[in-house]
C-alpha cells in the first residue's frame, strides 16, 4: 500500500490554516506576481527563504519539501541548459561545465529562472497543503463571484476542481492496486525487458479508466440523491469574516511587492 498522505491537506490547526481563504488566495497571487516581477537575485532568495519559513510555521514535513524541490530537478536542468545556449557572450565566460558555457548574465538568468519555478511551486503547494480543499474552493468561488454576472459557471468549475483534488490520492491508491493485480496474473512480465513492460501499460490504464468512469457515475448519483443541484439556491455552511491578521498579511504582501520596485 503506497502511502500517499503527502498529496493531501492534513488538518494541523496551525496559524496559517486559520487565514481567511479569500485573503490567502489573493495574497498568494500578489506573492506570485512579486516572484515573477522580481529580478534581483538576493531579494528572490529572500522570498524563497520566506516561503520556507512559512512552511516551517505551517508545521509541514521537511521530507515533503525536499521531495517537492527534487521533483523539479528536470526543470532546473533544462532551464540551465537552455540559458547556457541562449545567452552567449564569449568574452565573459564565468564557468564552463563540459560544453556548457555560462556568461555571468546567463548564469544569473538561469538561477533566477530556477528560483522562480521553485518559488511558484512552493507557494502553490503551501496554499494547497494549508487549506482544506472545500475551504479553498469556497474561497475561490467567493473571489470569482463577479464572473457569475456574465454567466460563467463559476460554482461548477470550482466543484470540478475540488473533486479532482479530492480524488487524486484515491487514484494513486487504485493505480497501486491494479499494478499489483496485473503483476499477480502477468506471468512475471514486469521482470522482463522493456517491450514486455510496455505491454503492461494497457492492462493498467484500461481498468483505471473504467473504474474512474464508474466512480464518476456513482459520485453523480450520490450527490444528486443528497439533493445537490449546483449553485442554485445553495446556502453556505460556513461564514467567512476577515480578521485583522488577514489585513496584516495583505499589507505585508503588498509591501513585499512594492519592495521590488524600490530595490
Amino acid at each position, binding site marked *: *500500500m503506497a*502511502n500517499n*498522505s503527502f498529496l493531501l491537506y492534513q488538518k494541523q490547526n496551525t496559524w496559517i490554516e486559520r487565514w481567511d481563504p479569500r485573503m490567502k488566495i489573493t495574497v498568494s497571487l500578489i506573492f506570485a506576481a512579486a516572484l515573477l516581477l522580481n529580478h534581483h537575485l538576493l531579494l528572490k532568495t529572500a522570498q524563497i527563504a520566506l516561503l520556507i519559513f512559512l512552511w516551517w510555521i505551517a508545521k509541514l514535513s521537511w*521530507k515533503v519539501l525536499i521531495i517537492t524541490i527534487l521533483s523539479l530537478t528536470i526543470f532546473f536542468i533544462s532551464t540551465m541548459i537552455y540559458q547556457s545556449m541562449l545567452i552567449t557572450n564569449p568574452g565573459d565566460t564565468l564557468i564552463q561545465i563540459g560544453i556548457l558555457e555560462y556568461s555571468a548574465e546567463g548564469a544569473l538568468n538561469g538561477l533566477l529562472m530556477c528560483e522562480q519555478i521553485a518559488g511558484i511551486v512552493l507557494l502553490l503547494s503551501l496554499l494547497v497543503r494549508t487549506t482544506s480543499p472545500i475551504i479553498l474552493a469556497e474561497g475561490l468561488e467567493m473571489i470569482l463571484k463577479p464572473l457569475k454576472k456574465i454567466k460563467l459557471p463559476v460554482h461548477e468549475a470550482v466543484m470540478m476542481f475540488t473533486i479532482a483534488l479530492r480524488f487524486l490520492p484515491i487514484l494513486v491508491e487504485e493505480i497501486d*492496486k*491494479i499494478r*499489483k*493485480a*496485473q*503483476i*499477480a*496474473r*502477468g*506471468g*512475471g*512480465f514486469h*521482470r*522482463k525487458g522493456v517491450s*514486455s513492460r510496455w*505491454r503492461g501499460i*494497457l*492492462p493498467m490504464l*484500461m*481498468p483505471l479508466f*473504467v*473504474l474512474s468512469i464508474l466512480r464518476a457515475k456513482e459520485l453523480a448519483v450520490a450527490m444528486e440523491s443528497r439533493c445537490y443541484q449546483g449553485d442554485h439556491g445553495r446556502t453556505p455552511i460556513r461564514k467567512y469574516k476577515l480578521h485583522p491578521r488577514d489585513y496584516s498579511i495583505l499589507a505585508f504582501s503588498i509591501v513585499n511587492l512594492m519592495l521590488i520596485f524600490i530595490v
Partner: protein
Amino acid sequence: MQIQLVNVSFTYSKKKKRAASTAAPSVLHHINLTIQSGEMLAIAGKSGSGKSTFLQLLKGFLAPTGGQILLDGIDPNTSKRPDLFDQIGYIFQYPEHQLFSPTVFEDIAFGLQSAKLTREIKEQKVRKAMKAVQLDYDEFKDRSPFELSGGEKRRVAIAGAVVLEPRVLILDEPTAGLDLQSRTALFDLLHQMNEELGLTILWVSHQLDEIVNHACRLLALKKGEFIADGSPVAILSDPAFLNAFGWEEPSVLIVSRLLKELGITSGNDRISPEEAADAIAAALSLHQQQITAK
C-alpha cells in the same frame, strides 16, 4: 508447495508511522507458520489486523522486515529468486475490476504472453483454465468481459490466475459482493481445484459459516498476531475466542450444538444441513409416536 514463515515481522517504515496510525496499523509481529501443500485455509480478522499485509508478504509484493519466508525451503527474497513467487496466484478483492481486454480469451491469456507459447498450447491452456472455472470455452471466448454478469466476470478473473497453473491460490475476500448462488458455485470451484489439481488455497473471509463449511484450517489474526490456528469447528465453538473477536457463533455450529445437547445427535461437532434436517425429522417422528402411544 510448502510455505514456511520463520519469525516473520513486518513494519511500515517508522517515518510513515504517524500517517499509518490514522489509516490502518498494518504491522505483523514474529509469525511462525507452516502451510502444507493442498490445504484449504481460511484467514479471518478484523479490518486493520494485518490480513492484507500477510497475504502480500506471501506473494512477494512486500518483503518482511524481519524473519524469512521459505517457499519449499528457499527464501526468494534473499536468494534473488523472485520467480518463485510466480507459483503463487493472487486474486485481489473485486478481481473483475482488473479486466481490460476486448475478449475473454485475451484477458485470460494475458499471463501467458511473456512465456512465448504457440497458439495451440495457449489455446489449450486457456481452455483448461476456463473449464476449471466452469465457463464454456466456445460460448465465452469471443465475448467482451465487460458485458458479463458479476459472477461470470469474477470467474474470468480467476481463470486469468489459474491459467498460469499456480500451486498456491490466494484469494482476498473472494465472495464479496456475490449472490448466494455465485458464492456456492465459487466454493464448489475452489474445492474442485483443491482436490483435482492439488492446489493450496488460502482465502480471507468474514463469513464464519463459510469458514466452517469450507476450510480445513483457520488462522485468526488480531493486531498482527495469529491468536488461533487450527480446526475451524474447534476454534469457532470456543466462547472465549468468539468473545475476543466480538463474533457470534456460526449458525451451523449452533444447530449442531443444540442437537447434541438435546441428545438427538451425538459425536459430530459439525453436521451438514441435510443431516440436521434428517435428525430433526427423526426426532419429531419419534416424539409423535410417543404422543400417540400415550
